[in-house]
């Protein structure tokens, strides 16, 4: 067998044997890794769920443009086209006077007084164009288009994005922006703290075995022949911890969906979280494995370095 291959297979084998022989140390280090990786995974799923909830809320927001009864169908058609051409407009929907009336009737089916108000007269409701913005933060663009004199002339009333409604929409937009940023921030903070904790744990585990490193050094072992098994060992920690963290989150969803009959907990939509988790299971697993392996390997490379240095002081 090729000498490099022998060395490589020895490094792998030694790493795995060391993992088994240092089982208790491994359990302690892995417990820390499992907990931190689970928190990171949990924060990612939670963040995705919050984002989904936020999207559901913001999707309900649109601007209604009320047209004068005198507006011709050609003018209406042209306005719809111009609105649809705006960069920040996702969807445009036209409701004729009849459709507006029907909608009104449906919405107020159990309120005879409100129903009576419309049936008496000859349909007071205006034809409406519902505009769904792409980005709520740039909703002002649409508003200023609608305020152009030529466009405003066709409208029977201010568009719905004004007054109290404008304030409400602006508040929602502001709040969701903050929530989104906070979510990303929380994931980042958890990830960084986890990395530091895992790094520290591995450093402690290697510190406990520094004698081994210096002895091997004295016997003339090369840097990677000494370091390799430690890297392999910590990669094993990383892989097992990643698998366990995914397993824990998975059983958490199973338990939550059977114990809590409700499908959501406040803002946290558990059923969506579960769906998201299962739909992205492979990606999440790959990510956890990647993070576990990377942090494990990098930590052990850095942690072994100081014990492998040669004396340079004279």
């Amino acid at each position, binding site marked *: 067998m090729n000498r490099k291959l022998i060395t490589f297979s020895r490094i792998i084998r030694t790493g795995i044997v060391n993992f088994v*022989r240092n089982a208790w140390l491994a359990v302690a280090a892995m417990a820390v890794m499992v907990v931190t990786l689970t928190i990171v995974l949990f924060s990612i799923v939670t963040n995705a769920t919050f984002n989904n909830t936020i999207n559901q809320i913001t999707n309900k927001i649109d601007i209604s443009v009320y047209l004068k009864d005198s507006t011709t169908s050609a003018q209406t058609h042209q306005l719809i086209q111009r609105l649809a051409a705006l960069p920040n407009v996702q969807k445009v929907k036209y409701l004729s006077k009849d459709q507006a009336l029907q909608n009104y009737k449906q919405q107020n089916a159990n309120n005879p007084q409100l129903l009576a108000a419309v049936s008496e007269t000859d349909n007071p409701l205006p034809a409406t164009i519902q505009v769904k913005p792409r980005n709520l933060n740039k909703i002002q663009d649409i508003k200023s288009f609608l305020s152009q004199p030529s466009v405003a002339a066709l409208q029977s009333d201010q568009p719905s994005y004004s007054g109290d409604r404008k304030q409400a929409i602006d508040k929602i937009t502001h709040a969701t922006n903050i929530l989104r940023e906070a979510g990303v921030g929380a994931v980042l903070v958890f990830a960084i703290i986890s990395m530091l904790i895992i790094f520290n744990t591995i450093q402690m585990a290697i510190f406990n075995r520094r004698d081994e490193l210096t*002895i*091997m*050094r*004295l016997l*003339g072992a090369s*840097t990677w022949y000494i370091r390799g098994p430690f890297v392999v060992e910590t990669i094993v920690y990383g892989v097992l911890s990643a698998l366990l963290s995914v397993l824990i989150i998975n059983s958490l969803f199973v338990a939550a969906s059977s114990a809590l009959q409700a499908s959501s907990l406040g803002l946290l939509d558990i059923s969506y979280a579960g769906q998201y988790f299962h739909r992205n299971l492979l990606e999440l697993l790959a990510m956890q494995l990647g993070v576990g392996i990377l942090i494990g390997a990098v930590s052990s490379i850095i942690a072994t370095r100081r014990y492998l240095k040669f*004396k340079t002081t004279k």
Partner: protein
Amino acid sequence: MILLDRVTKTYGKTATPALDRVSLHVEPKEFVIVVGQSGAGKTTLLRLLTREEKPSSGKIIVGGIDYDKLRDRDIPLLRRKIGVVFQDFKLLPNRTVFENIAFALEIVGMGSHEIRHTVPKVLDIVNLKGKEKRMPLELSGGERQRVAIARAIVRQPKILIADEPTGNLDPKHAWDVINVLEKINRYGTTVLLTTHNQDVVNKLKRRVVTIQHGQIVSDRARASYAL
């Protein structure tokens, strides 16, 4: 084989050097005993030879390698040429006797088959047959010392450095160890031995170098113990 030219080693900023202008020449296949009280500088001398420490000044050449020109990444190669029996054994705590000795062969890339063939031979030399699977902690002090010796000689090094290898042994086992050292010296290995043991020095009748306060105070051929 070993050449030290006015080697001085000062640790940190202490005023008195651990070794002070020590010059020593050891021929190939020679057997040299270094004696001296503890703190005299024996261990520093050995640590300089294995390049655990760098001399503050002076020149060291071992087996044709000039330590001034030795790059860091070649230090492992140097250490593979020298067998060392450390005073505190330095066995790998998590590995069996067999694995400890095999490790010395693994790092030079010897095949597994050859290792399985070689290790028992050395275990036989140091009388440790049947203890292959023991862990170092399950062995007595003397047994650990012999594992350390087996590990040092298994690569058949050109140079063997032994720091107090009889320190923890009763007289009978001490002589077994000395016999092993003499035997591999006869096969052509240069041996550098430090010891406190008066008996050993007197009976070996080899060259004796005496170190005191970091300086060589006497260097006599076929000498006996005198401090």
